[in-house]
């Protein structure tokens, strides 16, 4: 039916004839797409195209034939799916068997048959036609291959054709003499067939492999190689028969190893060296059958002088070990080991060393993995014995260079498997233990202990079911005594390694006995009280205590907590006798130790009451509790709170215990008193309150919403109504009314309220919110001390930021704006109103509230205010920086991630305009504001914007304000590194100004200016050379600066300038 329709359609195809003529004879390219589109839309069939082409396909002129076939191929490439659906399926039933034809027939006869037989089976005959054309003139071949590629994409190709096409290509075409594009076409045909006709191709047996080897032999183009490597990889991984051609296949691919390819500049194909390396590696490491050929090659290349060859070989070896077994490796182990050992011992580069170690690790893993026959010798044992034999003696010379490479080799092997780890540890550990005692110098012992530590750490990789099997249990006592020796050594370095070793030993399950632990805890206790000069050791000891306390809470609560508690009490009385600052610092160490070990819920239950009790004692007793002491306790509390955050139960315990206690102490301190007590006022100082704020904040942020709701129901009424009933020891002499006419001391405690309500999760409802907000607003603009009004403004802003959008929020905002405007217009409260404006603006900027731009404009207007201008300039720093107490992400504030970028784009143009329009005396305010904004912006965001601001920045360098100078220098420094071309236009200004600033009275400016002088050397050398003598002379002066840190920068900058344009730099 379809055939009849096709025949009828032959007549009215004049247009097609025209198009074909234009393409073939007229050499126009357009008609091909037109024809393809028409075939797609159903206007013509493929048969009609063939018929229209008729004469050109049999033209005696090869160029014309080539054009004709090209057109057909292009049509097929776009329409191969169509061909099958319409013609192929309809016709296939009619032709039971495709007749073998066109063997050697002449051109015209083959074409006749093509048209005549077309109706019988389109695809078959197209294929046979194309196969036949492969014998044609070389000009025709590219188009023929294109056509075959189109046909290879046909999904329902009749069986047998794929094989015949490939056979024809293998037989007729000398692929490597074709241009790159046509070779690529051949690879595509093969790839397509391998994807869809795997079974048929496998029927060809090893002939297919051999054919392909001939096709790719001699390939040079990286684009083609990527495809060819892929094909080889598939041949191997899909299990095609390689027959006797394994070595040939290896040769034809391994001749590219190691890949040496540098992509040409502006390469449009984007092929990197790494792509080729990885795809070749995938081939080489895909089968153990290559092993006997590959391993000698790898050894040869590791031994070569070329760094990249060494790296590639080691990495390939590493990859091979994933598929190899003992059988493949057996004969090559001695040479492989010799090469790896040489590379690691000589450390030509850190990368080679790392790759060598990785390769050794995989080799060992490979040997450990293989299942042995009963009678076979275990290669792993002999291999490891070899390694031990070559490395052991170096471990006995802790001063020599090879000690570390040897240890690393042994550790790399031991890290491969439990069996290897056993073998090596059982050999090395006794040796190292013995060596530790043989060497008496601290630095030698340190090296040895550090090696032991490395081997111990490896143990953690393997879990042992049976306790007796654990290789360490036999050495436990020796190890412990060695660690304790290290901990008592005078050398800090040795102590540090000792502490790390102790931590690792402790992490081994069931290794340490309770006696060992008691000793260990004793040592940690002693180390926690070390003097200032062994700070690093003390910090490490505290950290180790924290880690071990999570594992052995009982040991710490029974042996350490009581000692620390005793220490705190004894100190009380000693301090009373005024026993010097050393007692005071012991005190602080004790607090730090208490917080460090609070890593387990059961320990917190003991340490927290101790800390709180201590705080109460300080407040009650007659002792003079210094501000710094109280702050130290608060810092410890804060650290404990941090450690509790992850465990909901501890978190609630801390919150419930610590916060009422802190509030009670503060409220007590704020009460008006009959006798004038100075002592209790310590609690009301700015710094002490700030420390308490961070404790309360940390203890609140991680509360679950329902527990937070319980807490908020107590705390808000405390501040609004003076309801003190939930506080412990709540018999206060007076009422607590911070918002009414309470004393100024009481008003200061609003900071504590701020810490709490501003850290609550966003979905916790705050009771009496409306009243609270109004009170806060009132307090923020009254004449009390700046501390309480600022706290109120921050608290208001913190709540505003989290409040959901809606009518209530708008009301609060309206109130705030009214308050700000009223305050700013009249005299006494201007600075308070400004502070309120600043915080409210920040709260809105963070959440992208639409009103924020309006408030920012107001703030920018204040830059030219004679009174508030400088404060407004500094305000920009606050807007852009992260706060620690309110409006933090940790405290659940709404902080959009890009707020700085957005602020920058929205406001910097206005700031620049303002700068140009402003009168001289207030210009610095604009520069300062601008530099704050630029300084806080992430550098990658800033860099593309900076060139437009460059003139302003250069002007800012002359600004007398050192804050502006500093921030401008820190903006320019990365710009010098990243955008040297732009900057080199201004080299004269830059060099002059930087040199001027290098003698600034401010040390920080001098340092930054010299760092910029250093960065200037990244500009193109020809631009700099005229300045070299002048700069070198000028930089001689800061070499003699009175500050060492300045001299250091001068030395490195001057050294770099000396190297400019000098040979060897």
């Amino acid at each position, binding site marked *: 039916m379809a055939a009849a329709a096709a025949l009828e359609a032959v007549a009215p195809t004049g247009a097609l004839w025209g198009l074909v003529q234009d393409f073939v004879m007229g050499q126009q390219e357009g008609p091909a797409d037109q024809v393809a589109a028409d075939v797609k839309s159903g206007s013509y069939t493929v048969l009609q195209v063939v018929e229209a082409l008729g004469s050109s396909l049999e033209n005696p002129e090869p160029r014309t034939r080539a054009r004709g076939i090209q057109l057909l191929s292009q049509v097929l490439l776009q329409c191969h799916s169509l061909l099958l659906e319409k013609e192929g399926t309809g016709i296939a039933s009619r032709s039971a068997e495709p007749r073998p034809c066109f063997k050697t027939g002449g051109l015209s006869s083959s074409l006749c048959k093509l048209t005549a037989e077309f109706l019988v089976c389109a695809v078959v005959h197209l294929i046979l036609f194309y196969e036949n054309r492969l014998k044609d003139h070389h000009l025709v071949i590219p188009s023929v291959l294109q056509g075959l590629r189109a046909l290879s994409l046909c999904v329902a190709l009749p069986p047998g054709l794929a094989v015949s096409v490939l056979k024809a290509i293998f037989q007729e075409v000398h692929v490597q003499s074709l241009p790159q594009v046509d070779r690529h076409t051949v690879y595509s045909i093969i790839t397509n067939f391998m994807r869809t006709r795997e079974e048929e191709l496998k029927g060809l047996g090893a002939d297919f492999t051999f054919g392909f080897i001939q096709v790719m032999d001699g390939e040079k183009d990286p684009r083609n190689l990527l495809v060819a490597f892929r094909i080889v990889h598939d041949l191997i991984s899909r299990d095609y028969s390689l027959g006797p051609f394994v070595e040939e296949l290896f040769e034809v691919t391994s001749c590219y190893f190691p890949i040496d390819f540098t992509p040409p500049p502006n390469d449009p194909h984007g092929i990197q060296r790494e792509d080729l390396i990885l795809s070749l590696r995938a081939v080489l490491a895909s089968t153990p059958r290559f092993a006997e050929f590959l391993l000698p090659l790898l050894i040869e290349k590791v*031994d070569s002088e070329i*760094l990249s060859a060494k790296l590639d070989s080691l990495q390939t070896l590493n990859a091979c070990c994933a598929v190899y077994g003992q059988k493949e490796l057996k004969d090559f182990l001695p040479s492989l080991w*010799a090469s790896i*050992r*040489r590379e690691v*011992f*000589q*450390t*030509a*580069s*850190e990368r080679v*060393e790392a790759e060598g170690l990785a390769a050794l690790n995989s080799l060992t893993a490979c040997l450990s993995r293989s299942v042995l026959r009963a009678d076979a010798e275990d290669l792993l044992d002999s291999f490891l014995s070899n390694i031990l034999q*070559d490395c052991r003696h*170096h471990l006995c010379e802790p*001063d*020599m*260079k*090879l000690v570390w490479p*040897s240890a690393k080799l042994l550790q790399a092997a031991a890290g491969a498997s439990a069996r290897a780890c056993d073998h090596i540890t059982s050999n090395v550990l006794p040796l190292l233990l013995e060596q530790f005692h043989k060497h008496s110098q601290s*630095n030698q012992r340190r090296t040895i202990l550090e090696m032991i530590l490395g081997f111990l750490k490896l143990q953690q990789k393997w879990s042992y079911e049976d306790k007796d099997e654990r290789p360490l249990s036999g050495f436990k006592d020796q190890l412990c005594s060695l660690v304790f020796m290290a901990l008592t050594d005078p050398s800090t*370095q040795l102590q540090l390694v000792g502490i790390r070793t102790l931590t690792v030993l402790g992490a081994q399950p069931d290794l340490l006995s309770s006696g060992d632990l008691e000793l260990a805890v004793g040592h940690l206790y002693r180390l926690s009280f070390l003097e200032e000069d062994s700070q690093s050791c003390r910090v490490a000891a505290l950290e180790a205590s924290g880690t071990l306390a999570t594992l052995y809470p009982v040991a710490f609560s029974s042996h350490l907590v009581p000692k620390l508690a005793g220490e705190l009490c004894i100190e009380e009385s000693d301090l009373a006798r005024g026993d010097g600052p050393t007692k005071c610092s012991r005190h602080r160490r004790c607090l730090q130790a208490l917080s460090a070990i609070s890593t387990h819920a059961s320990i917190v239950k003991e340490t927290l009451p101790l800390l709180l009790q201590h705080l109460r004692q300080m407040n009650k007793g007659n002792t003079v509790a210094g501000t710094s002491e109280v702050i130290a306790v608060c810092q410890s509390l804060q650290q404990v709170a941090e450690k509790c955050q992850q465990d909901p139960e501890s978190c609630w315990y801390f919150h419930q215990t610590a916060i009422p206690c802190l509030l009670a102490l503060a409220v007590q301190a704020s009460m008006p008193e009959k006798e004038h007590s100075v002592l209790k006022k310590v609690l009301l100082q700015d710094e002490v309150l700030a420390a308490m704020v961070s404790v309360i904040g940390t203890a609140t942020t991680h509360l679950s919403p329902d527990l937070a709701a319980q807490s908020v129901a107590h705390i808000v009424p405390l501040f609004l109504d003076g309801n003190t009933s939930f506080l412990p020891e709540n018999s206060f002499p007076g009422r607590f009314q911070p918002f009414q006419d309470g004393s100024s001391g009481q008003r200061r405690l609003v900071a504590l309220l701020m810490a709490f309500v501003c850290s609550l999760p966003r979905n916790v409802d705050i009771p009496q919110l409306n009243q609270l907000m109004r009170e806060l607003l009132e307090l923020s603009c009254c004449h009390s001390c700046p501390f309480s009004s600022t706290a109120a403004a921050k608290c208001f802003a913190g709540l505003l930021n989290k409040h959901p959008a809606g009518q209530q929020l708008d009301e609060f905002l309206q109130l705030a704006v009214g308050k700000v405007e009223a305050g700013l217009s009249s005299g006494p409260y201007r600075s308070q109103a400004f502070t309120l404006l600043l915080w409210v603006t920040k709260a809105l900027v963070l959440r992208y509230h639409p009103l924020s731009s309006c408030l920012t404009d107001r703030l920018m207007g204040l830059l030219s205010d004679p009174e508030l201008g400088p404060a407004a300039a500094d305000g920009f720093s606050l807007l852009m920086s992260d706060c620690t107490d309110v409006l933090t992400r940790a405290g659940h504030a709404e902080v959009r991630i890009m707020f700085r970028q957005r602020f920058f784009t929205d406001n910097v143009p206005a700031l620049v305009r303002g700068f140009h329009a402003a009168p001289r005396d207030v210009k610095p305010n604009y520069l300062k504001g601008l530099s704050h904004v630029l300084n806080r912006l992430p550098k990658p965001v800033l860099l593309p914007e900076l060139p437009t601001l460059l003139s302003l920045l250069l002007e800012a360098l002359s600004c007398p304000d050192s804050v502006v100078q500093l921030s401008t220098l820190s903006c320019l420094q990365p710009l010098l590194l990243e955008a040297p071309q732009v900057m080199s236009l201004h080299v004269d200004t830059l060099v002059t100004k930087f040199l001027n600033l290098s003698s600034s*009275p*401010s*040390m920080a400016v001098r340092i930054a200016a010299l760092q910029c002088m250093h960065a200037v050397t990244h500009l193109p050398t020809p631009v700099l050379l005229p300045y070299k003598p002048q700069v070198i002379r000028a930089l*001689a002066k800061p*070499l*003699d600066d*009175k*500050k*060492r*840190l300045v*001299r*250091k920068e001068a*030395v*490195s900058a*001057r*050294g*770099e300038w*000396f*190297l400019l344009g*000098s*040979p*060897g*730099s």
Partner: protein
Amino acid sequence: MVGGGGMGGGLLENANPLIYERSGERPVTAGEEDEQVPDSIDAREIFESPFLHLAHLIRSINDPEHPLTLEELNVVEQVRVQVSDPESTVAVAFTPTIPHCSMATLIGLSIKVKLLRSLPQRFKLDVHITPGTHASEHAVNKQLADKERVAAALENTHLLEVVNQCLSARS
């Protein structure tokens, strides 16, 4: 000492040398951050600025990519640096790794050049070999002390290139 050190990778003068500890970056003290307090130039500073970051010249006889610093090889030690800030003098003694080290002059020259570039002009420099540690100690010391010979050496492009390579922090 065997360890395959001498095979394959070219001839090494010393494959398994003694290694000394690095002293690490000098911590910044509170006094140094105080604008008002002057810090005098001391031996540590002289020692540190030129040598800690000196990508060192034994590279050509050791390995080119991962050099040990002069400090790790104990070629220079802080105790062998004598400084007097008020008198403006610096004396540095360096110890070649082996008594016949062929690089001794080059090491000395590099140290001298680095110091010339890093110290205020008021300082008088003296760079010499630690007594008794090198076969031709006197000859080398004489060369290093001779201003004109040092200047002439630095006119030699090839020599300057090697010295600069040793002093280049970027490599």
